[in-house]
């Protein structure tokens, strides 16, 4: 593994607090994921790809923004791997890069209506913007 790959892997593991080596490859995270069909890379692939250091494809993938953070994979994983926390860490690594914000304040008026709860707007900003 190159040094830059290794550094990225270490960063993801450190910020997520997840140890991907605990995974026993049962796939229960992907079995349980409600956003599975909308994802290019599925929860078990996130775990495996972080473990093997193959993180760049994840950084580029829309899958980062499909994870609903519903914690179903966290609660049901028999190995306590907590895949959602890994997805979150990769997502942060992506949007923390300059110019990588996925949403700006200017986009908001078009995306909301009269009933849109404030909760939705602040949540979306937390997920898409740094």
């Amino acid at each position, binding site marked *: 593994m190159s040094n830059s790959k290794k550094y990225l892997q270490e960063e993801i593991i450190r910020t*997520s607090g997840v140890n991907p080596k605990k995974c026993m490859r049962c796939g229960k995270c992907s079995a349980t994921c409600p956003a599975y069909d*909308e994802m290019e890379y599925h929860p078990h692939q996130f775990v495996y790809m972080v473990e093997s250091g193959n993180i760049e494809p994840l950084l580029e993938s829309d899958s980062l923004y499909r994870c609903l953070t519903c914690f179903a994979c966290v609660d049901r994983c028999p190995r306590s791997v907590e895949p*959602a926390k890994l997805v*979150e860490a990769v997502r942060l690594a992506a949007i923390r890069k300059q110019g990588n914000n996925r949403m700006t304040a200017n986009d908001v008026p078009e995306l909301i209506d009269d009933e849109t709860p404030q909760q939705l707007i602040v949540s979306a900003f937390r997920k898409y913007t740094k």
Partner: protein
Amino acid sequence: MKFSYFPGCTLKNKAKSLDIYARRSAEKLGVTLEEIENWQCCGGVFTTAKDEVATKLSSVRILKDAQKKQQALVTVCSACHNVVKQTNYAMQNDKEFAGKVNRYMSEDEYNGETQIYHYLELLRDVIGYDKIKESVVNPIGKKVAAYYGCLLLRPNAVMRMDDPENPTIIEDLIKALGGEAVIYGYRNECCGGYVRMESPELAGKKSQTVIESAKKAGAEVIVTACPLCKYNLEKSGCDIPVVYLTELLAEALGVKEDTNE
């Protein structure tokens, strides 16, 4: 009985009824909710990354405020509850994180001492469903589907509200209010959440699964504690009413007056 109360921003705007009915019902049941002063938005979602500190400070301020008043903290909105509770758990269990927060906040040290109740837990564990049952004046008399979503129950290691896979806390309340609780498979599945913002189709699909599941089980009304769940369900073609559980409660207790005041 007095509790510190954190309504959150949505309850001051688009989900006013969730807030108002919560206070009125609590008063009726002998509990006063004292709103925390100068609170800030919790941020809507808890960022699980360990190096995220600033995004969690508003929650810590809320928790510290309750601690100063030596009161337990009550929340109603599922999202606020989840964020504040996860933050408190991190203050208790993540020494490095707590250290950073305490160094930044330059006041007395805080290590997660405040006890947090979701409004449902206040009803179940402090007031008691038996007492609520006695106070009911308008029994609901409808088939009600409890919609938990994800934020109230998960991650279970932190939330500890109920069995995350087969919860009963809302169903038991429905029964106490004279309604019939409808059990359906997707009551603890995500509505699609914040993804509504950029992918309404995905959020729509998730919400429709929940709606179909509830309707198949015979639900006449869906009850929730989360403004975003309510919004997502309503925007996804739900043709049965989606109401806040505090509204259901206020109606049953006979304190649901005109709220356009």
